[in-house]
Structure formats: structure tokens, C-alpha cells
């Protein structure tokens, strides 16, 4: 559905996209990851025709670019920072539903699905709405247009954790046929939403695959976090350090985080059970995304290891 071939973009001397090649099939959910300046937002801007570029980029065979009206017709967009128009929510819906050829009723229905009543909040100026309400308004407009593809540029960047979780839940309910492109730094939204990850580094694709493959490629596995009563925490750390399967022990909050192969997690817990150290809680924890990306592209950002 979406195809990029030898896609280049530079701003003056700064190369932002350096020969990207990828294909995204209909219904695929792809997360684009990377540090700030890696090229995620620029890629989205190219797709939306907000900037020009060299190379080929197309949606359903229609070329993207400033004249790419047909591409924009197929793509719903939720921006990173929802711009605040000097309009009431009613005015916003009237304008953008009108531009998309969506009825006011359909837009109101989508807003209601997301917990925003146009009857109650329609008269409010957009500047009076909370960040969460604004994001919902933009998501509602994108969903109401029923486009085959959704472009979500760090859509939860301005939300608090509770709103973020709700937003992710709402996106999980989006029609399965819709292709979703998500730019994000957050594992908690990538994991439930994306089935493919594309890591951009300095305008190039440093990784393209599933999340588990990303961990494996970076040589990282899920960690294990174990908690003991405060008085026993030192004993817990001591006991864990004695276990040859445990590579490193990191005291962490009320417990201890260890680095060990996932296959050894059960054995570690079993040995603790047999010891005198009381374990009150344990959880597996995926590696932090920042650490994975740092390993993948090199701690110094100089390139893949």
C-alpha cells in the first residue's frame, strides 16, 4: 500500500532521509522509532506532501508530494502537537469534516466514541480544551474520514499516563484493515499497536522487523524484577549475585532488577524459593527501548554494532 524507494530529503547541508526503501502492506501496523532528528517526522511530512523530496514515495500507486491530493485523501493524520485553531470545537469539526467530505453526524459519533460530546463541548474554544481532549478531537477527525491509512506522529506526546493508556486502547479498537504508521518513543504504545518496527538512524533504516527480533538483534532480553521485604533486600541481592546465571544485579526501587537469559528466569526464582530469602513479588520487564536503540545504533550513535 505504501512504498518508498531511494527516498532522500535534505535541508541545506543536513541530510535527514538518506535513501529509504520500504514497503508497507495494507492492514500492517508499523512503528517508526528513532532518536529526535532520526527522520520520522520528516518521513511523515514527505508522505503528507508538506515538504518536497527526492526519490519515490507512493500510497496505492499515487505519488506523494505537495501535489499528492490523492495520497492525502487516503491518509488520516494525528499530529504530534495538536495545533490549537482559533475556533470552537464546533468550528473545528465543521471545517475539517467539511474538507474531508464527512458529515457532522459522523464526526460527532466518532467524538462520542472517544468520550467527547459535541453537544456539551462543541461551543468551547479549542484553546480551552485539555491536551487529551484535543488529541481525541484530532483522532476523531482522522477516524471519521475512514481513510485506509492512519498516520500517527507521536500521538500521545502531550498526554498524561492515564490519557495515554486510554488513547492506546482506542487505537487498538481501530478497524483491523486500516494501515497504521506510528512514530513513537514509547514501548507501552508500540507493543500493543505495532506488529512491525522500523528503526531510523540518521535518515537510514537501522532495523526492520518485529519487536522480539529487535531485542535479539540488539542482544537484549527481558529482565526480571524481584521484590523482598525491605529488611531482606540486601540478602536478596547477595543471593542473586551467587547465582551464575545472573549476569548483573541492579537494586531498583523496592526490589532488584537482574540481567539473565529469559530461559534462566524460572531457575533463578526456584533457587530463591529454596533459599531463606522471602520473595514478595516478581515481574518480567522488557528491556528499556532507549537501551535497545542505543545498543542497536551504538551508544555513541555512530552506527549499528
Amino acid at each position: 500500500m505504501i512504498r518508498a524507494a531511494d527516498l532522500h530529503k535534505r535541508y541545506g547541508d543536513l541530510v535527514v532521509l538518506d535513501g529509504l526503501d520500504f514497503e508497507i502492506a495494507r492492514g500492517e501496523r508499523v512503528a517508526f522509532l528513532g532518536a529526535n532528528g532520526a527522520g520520522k517526522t520528516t518521513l511523515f511530512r514527505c508522505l503528507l506532501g508538506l515538504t518536497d523530496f527526492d526519490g519515490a514515495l507512493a500510497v496505492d500507486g499515487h505519488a506523494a508530494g505537495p501535489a499528492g491530493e490523492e495520497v492525502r485523501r487516503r491518509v488520516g493524520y494525528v499530529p504530534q502537537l495538536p495545533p490549537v485553531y482559533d475556533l470552537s470545537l464546533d468550528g473545528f469539526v465543521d471545517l475539517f469534516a467539511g474538507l474531508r467530505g464527512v458529515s457532522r453526524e459522523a464526526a460527532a459519533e466518532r467524538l462520542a466514541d472517544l468520550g467527547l460530546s459535541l453537544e456539551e463541548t462543541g461551543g468551547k474554544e479549542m484553546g480551552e480544551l485539555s491536551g487529551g481532549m484535543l488529541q481525541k478531537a484530532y483522532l476523531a477527525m482522522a477516524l471519521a474520514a475512514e481513510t485506509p491509512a492512519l498516520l500517527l506522529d507521536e500521538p500521545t506526546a502531550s498526554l498524561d499516563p492515564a490519557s495515554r493508556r486510554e488513547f492506546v486502547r482506542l487505537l487498538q479498537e481501530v478497524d483491523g484493515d486500516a494501515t497504521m504508521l506510528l512514530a513513537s518513543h514509547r514501548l507501552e504504545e508500540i507493543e500493543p499497536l505495532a506488529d512491525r518496527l522500523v528503526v531510523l538512524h540518521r535518515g537510514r533504516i537501522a532495523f526492520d522487523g518485529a519487536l522480539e527480533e529487535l531485542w535479539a538483534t540488539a542482544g537484549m532480553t527481558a529482565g526480571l524484577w524481584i521484590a523482598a521485604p525491605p529488611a531482606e533486600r540486601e540478602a536478596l541481592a547477595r543471593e542473586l549475585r551467587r547465582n551464575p546465571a545472573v549476569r548483573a544485579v541492579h537494586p531498583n526501587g523496592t526490589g532488584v532488577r537482574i540481567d539473565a537469559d529469559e530461559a534462566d528466569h524460572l531457575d533463578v526464582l526456584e533457587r530463591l524459593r529454596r533459599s531463606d530469602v522471602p520473595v514478595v513479588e516478581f515481574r518480567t520487564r522488557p528491556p528499556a527501548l532507549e537501551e535497545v536503540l542505543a545498543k542497536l545504533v551504538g551508544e555513541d550513535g555512530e552506527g549499528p554494532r
Partner: protein
Amino acid sequence: MTIDRPLVRRELRDAVRRYWFLVNAGAFAVAGLLFVLFGDTGSMLVGSRGYARALAGLMQLALVFVPLMALVPSVVAIAGEREAGTLDYLLAQPLTRTRVFVDKWTGVGTAVVLSVLVGLGFTAVAAALKGVPGGRIAALMGLTVLLALAFVSLGMWLSALTTSRTKATSLGLTVWLLLVGLGSLGVMSAFVQWGVPAGALEAWALVNPIEAYRLAAIAILDPEAGVLGAVGQALLEALGVAGLVAASVASLAAWSGAAFLLGRRAFSRPDRRGPGRTPARSTT
């Protein structure tokens, strides 16, 4: 009446929501009525000729005020959205850039023209009641609308070239000051004294939209009133009343069309700036 263009509708609503639409129309109406009712006081002329001279006074006000009325909303129409970060989301919709430009021009232009017509409407009625021929009043209103549209196009062009409200407004005011200043009789007289060829001055008088409007307005109202100035008088003698009005109308129409096309061209080029974060506050 329902407007089937959401962006045009939005610009019109915006104009009504903001004070400038009503303030402009109101101020213009009050000034016009004052000129018509009291402008001929002290004049030795009586009847419609006296009121025509009063209307000519109103036109002096219009040639300064109408360009400003048109420039203020048009110069921020694009630059304001660009600065607020709202333009990108608008351009992410299934629209061509030309369509966005045309709809914004139509919305701002309609609002400006309506405020001019509402403002002039009261004056026109009062002038008609005082005996000024309706045809002349209608011609003047048409001319004033052309002047307004020329400056809406000019404002939209400047707006497409700039990235902030402040820059766009400063640029708009500079252009306005230059055109008003270089059209004034004092400056034209100075040019004559400096030996600038008469032909160049006549050409400039027709090229400058404000001066073209002034000459056509006086020619329509009362070409014998003696307020055309030396350059205007020479043009009148060369072209006649109809020719002078036609040349002025062509000049205003050319400004409107050329600035519109240049603005559309400037706007059709995608932004060269990077995707940096933009303040999320609309001001247009």
C-alpha cells in the same frame, strides 16, 4: 445562504467573529456620512456638484483607509497560520495548495468587500438622497471594491512569502506607506521639480493602485473639480474621462490578478523549513 467551501466559510466566520469587520464597516460608514452631510459646507458649489466634491473628499479617505482594511486581514491569512503551526494540518487534508490559496483569498476578499460595501452603502444612500447620480455612486463603489481586491491579493502574496504575523504585517504596512507616500501630490510635485520625465510620472500614476484609484474616482465624480493634480490633468487630456477610468480600472484589475498569481505561486512551493516544533496557537 450556504457556502459549499468550508475554508471560505471559516474565513468569513472568522471575519465576523473578529472586530475588524464591524469596526471597518462602521468607521467607514460614519466617515462617509460625515463627508456627505457636512463635506460641502463652505463650498461655493451647490446641488449635486457640491456633493460630488464632498464624495471626492470621501474618496481621499478611502484611498488611504481601504488598502489598510484589505491588507490587515490578508497579510496574516497564511503567515499567521504558518506561525501558529495550524497550516500544516490544513495542508495535510485532501486539498491542493492552489485550492487552499483560492479559498482563503475568496473568504478574506468577500469579508473585506462586504465591509467596504456596508460602509459605503450608508454613504451611497445619503449621497443619492442629496442628488448625486446613482450611476456615479455605483461606479465609485465598484472602483472601491477593485481597490480593496487589489490589496487583498497584495496582502495574500506577502503572506505567502512570510513566516510570521509580525513580519507579514510590517511588510504590508511598508508597502502601504510606500504606495500612499509615492502617490501623494507633494511627492509627485517633487518628482516634477527633480526633472523626472512627465511620461514616467504618468505611467507611475497609473501603475500605483492608490493613485490609479484616486484619478478614476475624481474622473467619475467631477473631473473639472481641479483636484486631479498636474499629472492627472495631463492624463485626462490625453485619455479623456472614459480612457482614464478604463486605464485605472485595468491597473487595479492587473494588480489584483498579478498579485494573486504571484501569491499562488509562492504558496504552491512547499516550505523549506525543517519539521521543528511549532507553537500550537492559531491567530488567524
